[in-house]
């Protein structure tokens, strides 16, 4: 500590904290504990986050039936930890499975805002992607991505439950990369499309 004109007689807690911090930093740098922690805990939490995707129990239209079928004996989404919760507070994934009408647009944004970060949005079916067969309608938005950022698109009208399961697989791939980044900070990450080679 160089002589900078400070009063050395008085107990300088700030300097003490700095000194201790410096020593700790040095120790961390030498032992690379931070790296250990970030690698081990980061990998582990990433694994947990992508293996346990609770989906909001929201049924809009046809694809909702395929969503339900994906949870039933033949397809069994529970194998991959996909569960359906009724409360948006306890969900990670917003599965938009139908056309978003003008009346429902602000409601779905509200549901999205009620979900805690990190949260993901899957647009399932043509209606949610682009309006689908109803793209000419006076009451239907041209895709849910006009109001909510979408992570994975699952085309089909409706997509089969296998495609939905594949969509969750793609979402897990994406989570490997983005981890728990909040939804507002993934603008650069381009959305994935099921079946897009």
């Amino acid at each position, binding site marked *: 500590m160089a002589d900078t004109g400070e009063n050395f007689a008085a107990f300088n807690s700030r300097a003490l904290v700095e000194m201790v911090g410096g020593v700790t930093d040095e120790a961390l740098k030498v032992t690379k504990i931070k790296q250990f922690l970030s690698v081990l805990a980061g990998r582990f939490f990433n694994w947990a986050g992508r293996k346990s995707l609770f989906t909001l129990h929201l049924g809009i239209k046809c694809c909702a039936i395929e969503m339900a079928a994906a949870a039933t*004996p033949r397809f069994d989404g529970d194998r991959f930890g996909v569960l359906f919760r009724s409360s948006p507070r306890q969900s990670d994934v917003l599965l938009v499975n139908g056309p978003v*009408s003008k009346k*429902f647009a602000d409601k779905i944004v509200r549901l999205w805002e009620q979900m805690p970060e990190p949260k993901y949005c899957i647009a399932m079916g043509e209606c949610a992607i682009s309006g689908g*067969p109803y793209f000419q309608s006076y009451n*239907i938005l041209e895709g849910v991505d006009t109001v909510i950022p979408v992570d994975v698109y699952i085309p089909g009208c409706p997509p089969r439950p296998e495609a939905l399961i594949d969509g969750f697989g793609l979402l897990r791939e994406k989570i490997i990369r983005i981890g728990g980044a909040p939804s507002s900070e993934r603008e650069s990450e381009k959305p994935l499309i099921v079946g897009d080679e």
Partner: protein
Amino acid sequence: MAQMWITMGPQHPMTHGLWTLRVKVDGETVVDTEAELGYIHRGVEKICESRDFTQVTPYCDRLCYVSAMTWANSYIYAAEDLLEADVPERAEYIRLISAELQRLASHLMWLGAFGPDIGNLTLMTWCMRDREMFLDLLQELGGSRMHYNYPRIGGVKRDIPVGFADRMIAKVKLFERRIDEYEMMLDESTIWLVRLQGVGYANAEEMVEAGVSGPNVRAAGVNYDVRWAHPYSVYDEVDWEPAVEKPTSVKGADCYDRYRVRMEEMRQSCRMVLDAIEKIPGGKNTNYANGDEMIYQKAPTRAPEGATGFSNYECTRGASQFYIQGGGDGRGKNPYRLSIRSPMFITIPFVAKTMIGYKVADIPAIMGSFDPCIGETDR
């Protein structure tokens, strides 16, 4: 506790879709209700005015997401009325079989969704498991799991595949035993009975007055079934009887009656398809090529201005009706106006008023027993 309004929906497990039920409760008792629809109003009627008559079928498939085949058939009969098309008898039989298979799948979906309403989660997976059998059969016909685009004006898209008959008979016979299994699981459970019996009374005359139709009315002892009153396909040639329930109270049918009548309808559908597949003209194991005159007769594609077509069809939830006016697009290629009558659009406001006086916990039971489908409601 003071009275308060609770808004159930649009995202709510009870709604089976996207609509809002506003309930005024006094403690646990429902005092007043209000139904709010239109969350997935897609303007199908408007879009169809710019589609030609063949292109309307996929939109009708997508009207109700659990009974696509019956809704497409319903439209096809209206279009055939408008365009004066003739249908080969084999095609009528195939339509009957496909519609009844769809009815089985739809009622299974209803039972599966009704289970969690009451709190029985296993019922859901069991019913969906059995529903897959019928989806597989319909997939053999239409090529898709849910929206088949199968009937054509003047026939059907393609014939039943070879071996379809045997597979169908085996599955339907298996399913007839499964119905007994469900009834054993449900009817012998006291909890199931105390939750359903005496809840959600709806009187026959009130319901007819309000415009409710289908199994919901037949549960109250009304012997009216479109298949019986205005038989449109070959329903007068196959072996079946309308399933009519005998209500136990002057107040009409309760949830249990509606549950029973749907179980019985499933039995009747099984009986019907088993009979129809034997009676089908041309033989059950022959496969005619696409467009063969046994299954398809070419129909005119244009309708003059002023011509109208109307169909009254027994869908899985009640009488669905189409009213088409020809002469759109200047050349008669499109419908000028296509109007759809959805049974659930009438039923949901009625059911909302039915709940008054019951407990909050009865709302899902009552609503589920009427089998709401919002796709057809909002159109």
